[in-house]
């Protein structure tokens, strides 16, 4: 018998059960579908259960008492299994459809969700054409679990930068092409931000309702949007650098920092900008992107740091 047929039968049985049923009872009801050999039958049953649970089927299991004391019983509560009525109006359904076709995450999760809420997936435009605006969000297989943990207020534990962390998730933030988990790290008793793709290995989830999120907590506000503003404890004598940018690249810097960052303009069109440099490494990455079309004027320590960096490249050659 094909596993799909057997597992569908198992599902109908557990959904119809009015009480928890044991493995022996299941085997008896689905006669001939599990192997004769008890060990092989048990292994096949475990595979089926695992398949159902991986697909999100909530199989409830309890250790029974009475004349079945010590054996495990299984059933599926319809209230836990079934998706409630979402009752979307046509314009709401259309908006969700556009959202899923416009925001891509490299997975079929969104389309499968639309099927369940009974929205026709597919192109967002009339006439079946592909959408003309598409945003690709980064995706990480641990994000759904972190999202569920956040919604259920479950503590999570994982390894990060070689250390074990126990975190109460307060928010998830997609910024600059990365996902961040922000939460209270119990290991250090402080608020911390973790880049999700840098979490090592699996995420373990604790019990639900384990904490509350502080009133007014704003995940966007907890760390600066410009990494150059994040202090890195390297003292360059100032938090803002004066950078001379060639005329050819002034437009790019203007688009990033606006006219408010202009310190002075020179006759040849080159311009001095005031650029945050609290985080020297982030500043370096930004500055060196201009190659020879930008130069640090001040602070002197930062200028010398750039010279040292460049000379170290020459020294290695």
């Amino acid at each position, binding site marked *: 018998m094909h596993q799909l047929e057997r597992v569908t039968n198992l599902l109908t049985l557990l959904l119809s059960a009015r009480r928890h049923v044991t493995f022996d009872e299941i085997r008896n009801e689905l006669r001939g579908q599990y192997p004769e050999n008890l060990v092989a039958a048990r292994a096949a049953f475990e595979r089926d259960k695992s398949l159902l649970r991986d697909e*999100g089927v909530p199989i409830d299991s309890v250790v029974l008492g009475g004349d079945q004391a010590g054996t495990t019983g299984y059933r599926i509560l319809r209230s836990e299994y079934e*998706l409630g009525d979402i009752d979307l*109006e046509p314009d709401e359904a259309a908006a969700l459809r556009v959202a899923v076709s416009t925001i891509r995450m490299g997975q079929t999760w*969104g389309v499968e*969700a639309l099927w369940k809420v009974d929205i026709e997936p597919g192109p967002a435009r009339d006439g079946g054409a592909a959408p003309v*605006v598409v945003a690709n969000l980064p995706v990480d297989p641990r994000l*759904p*679990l972190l999202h569920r943990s956040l919604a259920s207020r479950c503590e999570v534990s994982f390894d990060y930068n070689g250390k074990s962390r126990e975190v109460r998730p307060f928010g998830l933030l997609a910024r600059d092409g990365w996902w961040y988990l922000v939460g209270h790290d119990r290991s250090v008793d402080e608020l911390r931000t973790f880049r999700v793709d840098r979490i090592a290995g699996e995420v373990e989830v604790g019990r639900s309702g384990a904490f509350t999120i502080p009133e007014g907590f704003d995940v966007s506000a907890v760390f600066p949007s410009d990494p150059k503003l994040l202090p890195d404890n390297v003292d360059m004598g100032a938090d803002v650098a004066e950078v001379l940018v060639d005329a050819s690249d002034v437009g790019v810097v203007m688009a990033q920092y606006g006219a408010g960052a202009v310190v002075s303009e020179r006759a040849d069109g080159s311009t001095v900008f005031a650029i945050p440099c609290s985080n020297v490494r982030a500043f370096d990455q930004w500055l060196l992107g201009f190659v020879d079309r930008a130069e640090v004027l001040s602070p002197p320590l930062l200028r010398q740091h750039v010279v040292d960096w460049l000379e170290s490249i020459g020294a290695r050659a």
Partner: protein
Amino acid sequence: MTRRGPRPVNLRLRRLLVMLPWLAERGTVSTAAMAEHFAMTVPDLMADLTLASLCGVSQDPRDLIDLWVDEEAVHFGIPKYFNRPLRLTAPEAFSLVASATAARNLTGSDLGGALNRAVDKVARALGIDDVDRLVVELETPAAVADFARAAEAGVEVTISHWSVTTGDSVERRIVPAEVFMESDHWYVRALDLGVGAERTFRLDRIESHQVGQTRHDVDLGPRRPWFSDPVETTRVTIEMDPAWMWVLEQYPGVTIDEVTTPRPQGWVSVSMPVSSERWLQRLLLRLGSHARVRAPESWTDLASDTARLVLTRYGKK
């Protein structure tokens, strides 16, 4: 010719659990329409539904899932087991909420209120009481809306595009086909009328644009992955300190090679596609003394040559 392997059981089950309640609600549906809705072939659909029609708590025909399939249509009788879809899985819920949250940020999006209401309803059904804990920051430049409208209408746009390679701005006439965001940058994919070929332009490097009136019938087909045309890129091998791999994280096509060559202890060999020498200069300056080019030979001195070039700005030879 490649032959398709068997479809995985978990995917077939997942699809079945969403198809059965959908079918139960409709009664009779043409096989072609149903296959199209669920993105399947008609033979696959018929195989899965035929198998489902043999499933139930027992083999008594009264206990089987009440459906039958003929060549033209699928007929559903009395719903017994799968009256409602399975609740959304964690990935589906995450995807729906994240897509909707992100789509709300799109400039020019007229989804507004409908999307907000849809997100609230979905969140309520999922037991998520505060969707605002998940934030997707998606900055959409005002130009996105203009290029999207031009793509919908097939009209040409004259742009002034700044080249990072030369630092010059060049005027081009393009017909936009798609506007997309990837790794935190927005791009417009278009037919470049000057060269008669597809080109992709980063939006923050378009200094100005003027939407014209002339219409063109353009079909560029689906977008290809970055660097899918090997003629346009050079594969570069870099040896580097793995602690600096974060600099490369944002770039596509980076692979860590399992080669053993003489190099500083613990360094790794990385290969990646490079589209221009200027781009590689920027990368090598950012990596500093933590990396060096091994191949192609013509670029092995590029880092030190570029560092010397920049040092002249600082009065160093």
